[in-house]
């Protein structure tokens, strides 16, 4: 049975705005009635009990259509039939009379929705309770805050329960608590099979969770009408396409229109968290360079980076401010190939610095899965490469950045590994506090590298954490807590480690460097962090069950045997290596390794880099 029938509906706004008398008398032309057609020939049926989402960009006619269904204005042509159901429209900016009290407005709204006074009286208490207004209910609505306004309006519609509910962008009213509550109420209302609901929202999340069917309107016409997932997918594709177009326009527009500011530095991390190089450098600059302007590129609107400073300006990727910041920064620091995501021109005097995360790592960066275009762009853009060793310098020279000037300053992230003991202890204590690890417990970090594409879906050879703890206990003494951490790119693709007091899933900790400082033992397969960890001198082990396959497919810079760490290909071997760990031998091997690779880390990377920036600025 249909609850709403919409047949070939056209709705247009004549742009005859209300005129003043002067205009009426003196306008020579008889109103050049500009007709703006907001809804153009829309037809659909909605069955009783259906929950339909209405999506579309701003100005696509969603709200107009909704209001027509609500009977607020009739279509210019076509028919809307709501089959005699009582309809309520819920939208931002509430239909109250400001002079009257909340109580009176409840009754008036209820009467207009077609309820009798007695019916409203019955539900009155519930409405007041739900709205959380308390004694304010007897104060005039004009004294309400906007939040109270919205709460009251939501409560009236939600509690009075009309047959058809039209909801226009209101599921985001009030504080977080109320939002949750209204969302739950919404779900409850929707679960009633007799109630028909239409929801207009820009939040794909809301639509996805609540609706069974979605209609996509664009410029007043239906583009798609069908199952939620399907339509949302099409819609998102379209929006991405639009955004890309816009970004392109901004990128082209701002180049040459903004001047390079001699003291502005732009920090461009690959991830908002997990960007220790940039984070440490940022903190150093904020502390030591009071006259520099620091800009940080974020990837999402409400991203938290854990540094709060009024001097730090945040810009969102691919917005006009972002492009302006890129073109106006004297110094740009990129810890990936972020800047090369698209074709960006730079001014002559701008200097771009690049940091590799791999450093002394075993993985071959030249075989990383990066598009050729991105590589070419990066090769063109970068001015300086930051290195921490002869080995890394060599890596640069054999890569796309061949011929670039290499600064052997060390990596900013590693400065803290050389910091005073008290500072290191402070950072380690932070980790213990975060994960509530007891003071007397020792910690081992297990953090494998990302499973490249070819490894996905294959057996990885899971660690036996209990056996590992037992072995560590026997060899090093003390009770061990294990922090298990997956690579950023693997989150969600791999069954997560379930946290217990002994084994903690450490994916949500932002700084890997701090985790390292808190650990007594490190274990990985091919990840490069262990070579930073080496600088601390703590024992490390490799557990690489798929070494051969990995080397063939992905490529390694040197063999596992050449590392200072004992390498195991199965669990038994790993335990054996732990039991047979010889501190003296390990120390010797570590020293030899660092010497052979020509390590230049001295804990002064931030300082040296900032000095270099300063010279460039002058």
């Amino acid at each position, binding site marked *: 049975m249909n609850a709403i029938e919409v047949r070939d509906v056209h709705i247009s706004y004549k742009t005859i705005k209300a005129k003043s008398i002067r205009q*009426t008398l003196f306008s020579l032309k008889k109103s050049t009635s500009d007709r703006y057609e907001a809804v153009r020939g829309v037809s659909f049926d909605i069955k009783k009990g259906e929950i339909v989402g209405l999506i579309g960009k701003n100005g696509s006619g969603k709200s107009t259509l909704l209001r027509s269904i*609500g009977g607020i204005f009739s279509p210019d042509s076509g028919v809307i039939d709501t089959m005699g159901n009582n309809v309520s429209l819920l939208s931002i900016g509430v239909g109250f009379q400001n002079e009257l009290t909340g109580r009176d407005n409840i*009754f008036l709204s209820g009467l207009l*929705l077609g309820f009798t006074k007695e019916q409203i009286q019955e539900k009155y208490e519930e409405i007041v309770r739900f709205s959380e207004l308390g004694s304010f209910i007897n104060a005039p609505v004009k004294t309400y805050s906007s939040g109270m306004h919205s709460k009251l309006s939501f409560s009236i519609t939600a509690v009075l329960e009309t047959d058809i509910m039209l909801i226009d962008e209101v599921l985001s009213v009030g504080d977080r608590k109320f939002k949750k509550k209204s969302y739950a109420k919404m779900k409850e209302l929707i679960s009633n099979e007799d109630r028909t609901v239409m929801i207009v929202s820009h939040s794909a999340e809301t639509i996805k969770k609540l609706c069974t069917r979605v209609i996509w309107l664009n410029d007043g016409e239906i583009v798609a009408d069908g199952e939620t997932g399907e339509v949302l997918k099409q819609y998102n594709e379209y929006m991405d396409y639009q955004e890309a177009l816009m970004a392109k326009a901004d990128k082209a527009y701002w180049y040459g229109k903004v001047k390079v500011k001699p003291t502005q530095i732009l920090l461009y991390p690959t991830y908002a968290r997990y960007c220790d190089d940039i984070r440490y450098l940022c903190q150093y600059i904020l502390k030591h360079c009071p006259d520099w302007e620091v800009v940080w590129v974020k990837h999402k609107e409400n991203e938290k980076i854990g540094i709060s400073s009024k001097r730090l300006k945040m810009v969102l990727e691919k917005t006009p401010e972002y492009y302006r910041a890129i073109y106006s920064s004297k110094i740009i620091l990129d810890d990936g190939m972020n800047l090369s995501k698209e074709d960006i021109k730079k001014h002559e005097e701008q200097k771009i610095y690049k940091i590799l995360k791999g450093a002394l790592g075993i993985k071959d960066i030249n075989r990383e899965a990066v598009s050729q275009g991105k590589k070419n762009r990066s090769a063109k853009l970068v001015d300086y490469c930051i290195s921490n060793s002869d080995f890394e310098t060599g890596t640069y020279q054999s890569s796309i950045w061949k011929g670039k000037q290499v600064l052997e300053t060390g990596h900013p992230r590693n400065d803290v590994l050389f910091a005073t003991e008290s500072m290191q202890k402070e950072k380690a204590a932070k980790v213990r506090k975060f994960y509530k690890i007891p003071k007397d417990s020792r910690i081992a970090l297990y953090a494998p590298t990302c499973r490249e594409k070819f490894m996905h879906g294959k057996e990885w050879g899971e660690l036996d954490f209990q056996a590992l703890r037992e072995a560590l206990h026997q060899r090093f003494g003390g009770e061990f807590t294990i922090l298990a951490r997956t690579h950023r790119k693997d989150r969600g693709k791999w069954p997560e480690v379930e946290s217990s007091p002994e084994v903690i899933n450490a994916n949500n900790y932002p700084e890997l460097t701090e985790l390292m400082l808190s650990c007594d033992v490190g274990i990985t397969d091919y990840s490069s962090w262990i070579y930073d960890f080496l600088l601390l001198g703590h024992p490390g082990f490799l557990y690489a069950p798929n070494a051969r396959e990995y080397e063939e497919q992905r490529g390694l810079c040197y063999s596992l045997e050449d590392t200072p760490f004992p390498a195991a290909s199965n669990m038994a071997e790993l335990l054996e290596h732990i039991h047979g760990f010889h501190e003296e031998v390990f120390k010797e091997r570590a020293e030899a390794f660092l010497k052979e690779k020509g390590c230049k880390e001295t804990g002064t990377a931030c300082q040296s880099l900032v000095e270099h920036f300063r010279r460039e600025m002058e």
Partner: protein
Amino acid sequence: MKKFWKDLIRYRSYIIYATKANLKSEVAGSYLNWLWWILDPLLFMLVYSFVALIVFGKGEPYFPIFVFIGLNAWNFFSKSINKSVKMVRSYKGTISKVYIPKYILIMIAIMQNLFKMAVAFTLVFIMMPIYRVPLSWYVLNVAPIFFTMFVFTFGCCTIMLHAGVYVADLSNIIAVVLRLIFYMSGIFYNITKRVEEPYGSYLLNFNPMAFLINGLRNSLLYSQGVSYRMLLVIFLIGCVLAVIGIRLIDRHENSYVKVI
């Protein structure tokens, strides 16, 4: 028109509730509450009495009641008109959320002013014995006069509501026009006596408010009758205006929201 009667029945409880609520809110913030509904015309009565009696030295028998009746009737009419012109804009919040026939809003405004006028008129009936006004059967004429005034005001209001939506500054003009009609309606002077013929007759015969106010005074104070024929004409004019206004509103009310 059928829709009009149906709506009137359908929305009657809304009209009643809204009228009450509005009246309540009007007095909610003030110390003297509803007393203002009496005090306001009373004080203006003193002002006009001062002007007429002291400044111009031209009074009428029972002059304070004379002015008071005129002021009350006039307030009812002018306040209703003023409100109607701005009606759609002031209810913007409500009407952009839910459908409501717009003449229902006029009904609310008129009922509200009617109630206030009724309260104020109690004072007339208190003052009459004090001033020893002789009573006559003509007092009964008050009922048809009020009814005619109601219909006529409603008719004017419907047209004003519609026009007020499309002409943004109509309310400014209306304020001036109302002031002019105020002086032409003999609120604080007697048209028959003070305005020379033939202008006096013109005013009384072509200004319905002047005629109605004059009729009220004649019935209450001076034991004189009213011209039923004239009353009928005004009633019919009111009806015609109302029918035109309701039709206009009916046809266009769905585009009001788009304009404001």
